[in-house]
């Protein structure tokens, strides 16, 4: 099941809320959450829901083993076991086809390429269970002795299919004890509606622009062969913005739902589009993923406290893995490496030197790098990707601008203005300003309520027509 869908909004969610708030008994509430989460997952993956439960059992046991054998070899064994099983699942379900295909191409063998449909969200929950086991081993979180509470942590439906990757340390205490008050409900509902608006009104709108510029996987990205230079850069920027609005919208809904149930998830996006440097961009973009890789890959590799060469290698390893996490095709690790290179470049220049640069130049540099980067992200076939590269520098003989790009900009000019505006923290700033004085505070708070209702209704109407409502995370 996905969030941006009438069935979720007007059936699953209300029913879940009714059952959840029917009782104050936390045990029953936990039970409600587990049942609804499993139904939620089984809705899209009726068979592979077993995989989710299997992964939970494995790491639940690993946690207990670590607890009993602290400091002994068995604890280490449990961590290794968790890594092997979880990464094994991930490789088997997500990368096996990719690996076999490449082995075939490389050595010329004729292994049949396994056709396994990727269970939705597998990358998210395997990463969560891995983080739990490692945190247990590092003694950062208390071991969860109740299996059902642990299952609730893994299966919690707000963050199940499209993140964020919630650490056990973030919500461990709230699994044991949590309450919901009016403030949390109000904030939660507002957050859900905000996320919905980002996804349905904005991201879906940009999605159409992107397919006009670049085509889509279904038609083999036909349009990219004729796209002009400006069209290519514009399209790349649009891909970045589409993913930003779509993904942060989903995260907002997850955070909002969590808030209503009494959980406080960490923020996953902090206005990445206002970044001045690529390293800042990655501190603001999909934070739960980049911090996961930082804590469980980069730092164990030695981080920056090793020799210079090793440090650079570490960065490239982490970033190629980050890229690969997004999907099983070559453009994703390439995308990761691409950003890794710019991070290296920024390390080479040094923080102080970067600060001396005029802000305008830094902004232009970052935006261009991001636009090009998300072009790489978009094309999961090599042919169109190459065509995109050529188009960005005009090497395919296409003109500087083209009619379709111009028309599509004109056709969406107000949407694009909104897109640029809301990519900056305008709303929170305005709100903060208004909350200083009484009259403006009343106005802004009333406007907030009205906007919430309006956005909710608009999204609902737009969702009636389902032809343009893509789910972007089926590869993750």
């Amino acid at each position: 099941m996905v969030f941006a869908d009438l069935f979720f909004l007007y059936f699953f969610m209300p029913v879940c809320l009714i059952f959840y708030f029917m009782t104050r008994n936390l045990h029953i509430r936990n039970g409600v959450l587990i049942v609804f989460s499993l139904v939620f997952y089984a809705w899209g993956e009726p068979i592979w829901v077993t995989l989710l439960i299997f992964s939970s059992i494995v790491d639940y046991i690993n946690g207990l083993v670590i607890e009993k054998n602290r400091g002994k070899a068995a604890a280490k064994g449990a961590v290794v076991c968790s890594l092997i099983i979880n990464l094994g699942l991930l490789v088997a379900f997500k990368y096996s086809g990719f690996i076999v295909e490449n082995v075939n191409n490389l050595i010329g063998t004729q292994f049949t390429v396994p056709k396994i449909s990727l269970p939705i969200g597998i990358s998210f929950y395997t990463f969560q269970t891995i983080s739990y086991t490692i945190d247990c081993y590092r003694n950062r979180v208390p071991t969860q002795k109740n299996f059902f509470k642990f299952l609730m942590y893994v299966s919690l439906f707000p963050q199940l299919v499209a993140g964020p990757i919630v650490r056990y340390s973030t919500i461990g205490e709230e699994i044991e004890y949590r309450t919901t008050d009016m403030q949390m409900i109000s904030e939660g509902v507002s957050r859900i509606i905000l996320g919905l608006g980002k996804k349905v009104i904005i991201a879906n709108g940009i999605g159409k622009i992107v397919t006009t510029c670049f085509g889509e996987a279904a038609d083999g990205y036909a349009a990219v062969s004729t796209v002009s230079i400006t069209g290519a850069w514009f399209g790349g920027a649009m891909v970045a913005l589409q993913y930003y609005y779509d993904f942060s919208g989903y995260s907002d809904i997850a955070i909002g739902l969590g808030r209503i149930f009494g959980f406080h998830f960490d923020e996953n996006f902090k206005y990445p589009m206002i970044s001045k440097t690529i390293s800042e961009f990655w501190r603001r973009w999909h934070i739960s993923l980049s911090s996961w890789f930082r804590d469980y890959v980069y730092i164990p590799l030695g981080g920056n406290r090793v020799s210079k060469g090793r440090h650079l290698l570490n960065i490239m390893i982490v970033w190629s893995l980050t890229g690969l996490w997004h999907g099983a095709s070559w453009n994703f690790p390439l995308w990761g490496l691409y950003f890794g290179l710019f991070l290296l470049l920024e390390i080479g220049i040094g923080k102080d030197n970067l600060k001396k640069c005029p802000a305008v130049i830094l902004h232009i540099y970052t935006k261009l790098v991001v636009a090009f980067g998300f072009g790489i992200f978009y094309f999961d076939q090599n042919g169109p990707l190459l065509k995109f590269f050529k188009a960005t520098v005009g090497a395919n003989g296409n003109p500087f601008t083209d009619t379709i790009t111009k028309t599509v900009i004109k056709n969406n000019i107000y949407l694009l203005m909104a897109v640029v505006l809301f990519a900056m923290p305008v709303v929170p700033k305005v709100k903060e300003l208004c909350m200083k004085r009484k009259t403006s505070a009343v106005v802004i708070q009333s406007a907030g309520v009205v906007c919430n209702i309006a956005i909710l209704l608009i999204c609902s109407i737009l969702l009636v027509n389902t032809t343009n409502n893509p789910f972007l995370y089926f590869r993750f």
Partner: protein
Amino acid sequence: MSKKEKQPLDGSFDPSKQLEKLDKLFAESLGQLGSFDSLVGEDWEKVDEKTAAETKSDIDEQFIALEESKKAKKDKNKEKDKEKAKEEPQAEKTEEKPADDDDDMLMPFPVIKEEKSKENDDSVLDKTGPIPVIFKEEDAVVKIPTYEGEEEELEHEQLTSKEEYDRLFEELYHVEPPKKREPNFYKSEFRFINAAACLMCIFGIFAYLLFADRESGFINSENRMLATMPSFSVESYLDGSYAKGVTEYFTDTVPDRENLKRIGADITSHYGSKEEIKISSNVKAVKKEVLEEPSKIVTTATANVNIADVLTEDSSDESDEDKEPKETEPEEKITTMKEQVKQVETNFDEGTVYGSVIIEGSGKNVRAISAFYGLFENSELYAKTINKYKQELGSKVNVYNMPIPISSAFYIPKNFEDTVASQPDNIEVMNRNLKNIISVDAYSELAKHTEEYIYSRTDHHWQPLGAYYAGQAFAAVAGINYPELSEYGRYFKEDFCGTMYMYSDYNEELKNNPDTFTYFKPKNEYKTYYYNTDFTGKKEDVLFYDYAEGVNTYSVFMGGDETICQIDTDVKNGRTLVIFKDSFGNALVPFMVGGFEHIYVVDFRYFNVNAIDFLKEVKCTDLLFAMSISSMDTPSHITTLDNDRIQYRK
């Protein structure tokens, strides 16, 4: 009370004692409230105002004090809870219970509970009383007032007596007084309003969708049946189709979805400025292919219009059988042995094949056109595919090819011309590759009449008038009788809003400016029969389904595509025309009634007998391929056409 309250929070603060103190204070204040309550009436202002004011400020202070202490206590408790949860999970259970239980003895704040009911019951007190207490479910948080008017006054009061307040506070609690509160500005009220409004909206729609009558049946603008609630079975659950079906049903059958979709389209139309040209759907530019040499019309074959010839050929059919095959069949046999029906994705939906929609103009001139993306290689492949028909049929059957341009050939905006493939160039490629097939130049004929109503503006089909002109070109090369337009009966269908409305994502302009569909009925005598797609089940019916309406107005001809149609006319020239067509070809059929003795109309996409066997069986003298150029340039369609020739071979 549980032991947590006995723990001192810091050196000077003992919450349990404080609680007792507070309880006492509270009881006192309640007593005062009671007396205050009695003062409230019609003439309460007459009562000693001084005492009233004193009581008021007294209660003020106590409430503020109470609130602060509760807050402090709550925060500490929360921290402690967390600590405990970490250290001793057992303790947590005992703590949970009181919150769940309604027994007053176990409630952490029994007095407040009482207070709550009092406050809620007495709305008059709420107005006049100094500080209403706001309750948040089980947490019982005491909040400072927020109703209009009085707040500023209260704030002022508090500011003037701040020093005294601080002193009192220190004396009472032995802790530093809190810093000045952040101004509240109705935050909690707005939180409540916001949550209530949004949740009411969600739950309201939830309830409405649960009980309202759902849409069902045929949906005209999308030309399909709406989804129905799937029935549950273990298999359908396991392969995910059940869940998918339910979700689809839920969205598909939303009450009044047609209007909602229109509103949705209206919303998205405001994403940009109202331009003369609007791209709906995914228009993609295709690298324009250029013909290597300038086009020159090469007629590779001419029709054998000598009826006597045809007839003699027909009569000598059987004797010819031995003669003819010598030329063709030996090599054919080898190839046909290898040939197998190829699997095609059965997506014959012409609309999605067209895919990309450009809308230009406004008002009565609005026109939705689908861009053309044909490739030369496909045109070539198509030509080679129908060449095989000719090869198998031999010289006794005239084979014609009529590529029917789609409206973008004539009406695409000038600045888009370079972004789509050229239709005449593709036709030219086709013609160059045809062998012994007569090409019918519908394009040039139509190009002469672009000022007339030859294409629908809201539908992807042409108008019958366009078909008339194209038929003229065919009649010229086929050498048949072709009556003037005036010799036909003329019929109109108003308010025809065609398929482009849907493919343009419900463009309002199209909906508001529908087409008029004009069609023509031949006046000579004819009889019409229909067969199933496997050429069985012959039954007589009318040629024109006059009741066709809405988006399906175009199926006025033969009621649609999924039948084989036979027309026997009063023209006794011994010629039998077989039309292999897509839906574009349907409009041609009425104009052929005056020129052939027998006409068979076959939709190549829905044809379940062997084409060659069929053609021989009906004694075909003229075979016409009449379909839109987009069908001719779609590889899956070409494969289907090829399969028709190969499949079910006897």
